[in-house]
């Protein structure tokens, strides 16, 4: 487990540029298609965590569910600069429903 992994941030230019200063791999994308392609590409490489802005993430449910049950990459939705769309919170809710069979919280 000595291998090191990368952390990627995908989203629109303004939302991700700040992360570049932190030393994360920022990938500005302009369309959902581009983002999907990027996620697939990163999932094959040594990328352990992908932060995805909700703006892009909301239209790529298919790709997200593909990686949901795998250990890497962890795709985490973060609010973009337009503000939180509540998708991240919704996902937790969905995970609960999936596990319990009902929304209990």
């Amino acid at each position, binding site marked *: 487990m000595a291998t090191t992994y990368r952390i990627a941030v995908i989203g629109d230019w303004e939302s991700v540029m*700040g992360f570049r200063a932190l030393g994360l791999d920022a990938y500005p994308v302009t369309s959902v298609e581009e983002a999907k392609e990027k996620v697939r590409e990163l999932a094959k490489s040594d990328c352990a965590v992908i932060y995805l802005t909700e703006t892009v993430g909301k239209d790529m449910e298919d790709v997200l569910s593909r990686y949901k049950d795998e250990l890497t990459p962890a795709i985490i939705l973060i609010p973009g600069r337009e503000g939180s769309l509540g998708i991240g919170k919704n996902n*937790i809710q969905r995970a609960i429903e999936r596990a319990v069979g009902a929304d209990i919280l």
Partner: protein
Amino acid sequence: MANITVTPTRMELTRLKGKLKTARRGHKLLKDKRDGLMKQFLETVREVRALRAEVEEELMTVHKSFTVASALMSSEALEQALLYPKQSVELTMGSQNIMSVNVPVYDFQTKTKSDADIYPYGFASTSGELDTAVDALGHVFRKMLKLAEIEKSAQLMAEEIEKTRRRVNALEYVMIPETEAAIRYITMKLDENDRATTTRLMKVKDMILKQSLEEKRAEDARAMKAFGASGEAPQDA
């Protein structure tokens, strides 16, 4: 339980009884696993919700500062300022086993040790707002990594719980009742066979008795006849 295609033999009965025992034990174990996982899961989920709310809020302030910065600077200057990062993050991933679910544990090392030393640009040509944004981002990043860890754990655990729940239900409502029904069927059938055999034996015994009785009577009759022909009957036959 609609169609039971089991051969009603003693061997099959022993086999099914063993199967039922295993199924019961498996059911109990899986149920315990499900309950344990559920407890862990709910704890994790509560944590995720709290942390997510925090991260989202903090990210919004970051974005706000960043927007101001990008308004004050030209986009070329901004891009140039952030083009080559000074800081770099190396992520190491371990895994932790929670009730047979492997969840990731992240740990990261930064190249520059001090938090104050992360600005990849000179301060002369950039806006102060950019510093604020980068600084705040550096703080929120730790939380974001923790969020990634526990949110992924929650997702993986949700999957495992779903699987376990299905298994528990399948055992409880299909496997165990079906095996019980099959065992009952075989027991009944075997008992019925036993009774059939007893009845048959009784019947056969009856028939044999009747036959021997008839033979005896025929013999007696023959003897009487022979006696009648000779004339006198002996006193003690």
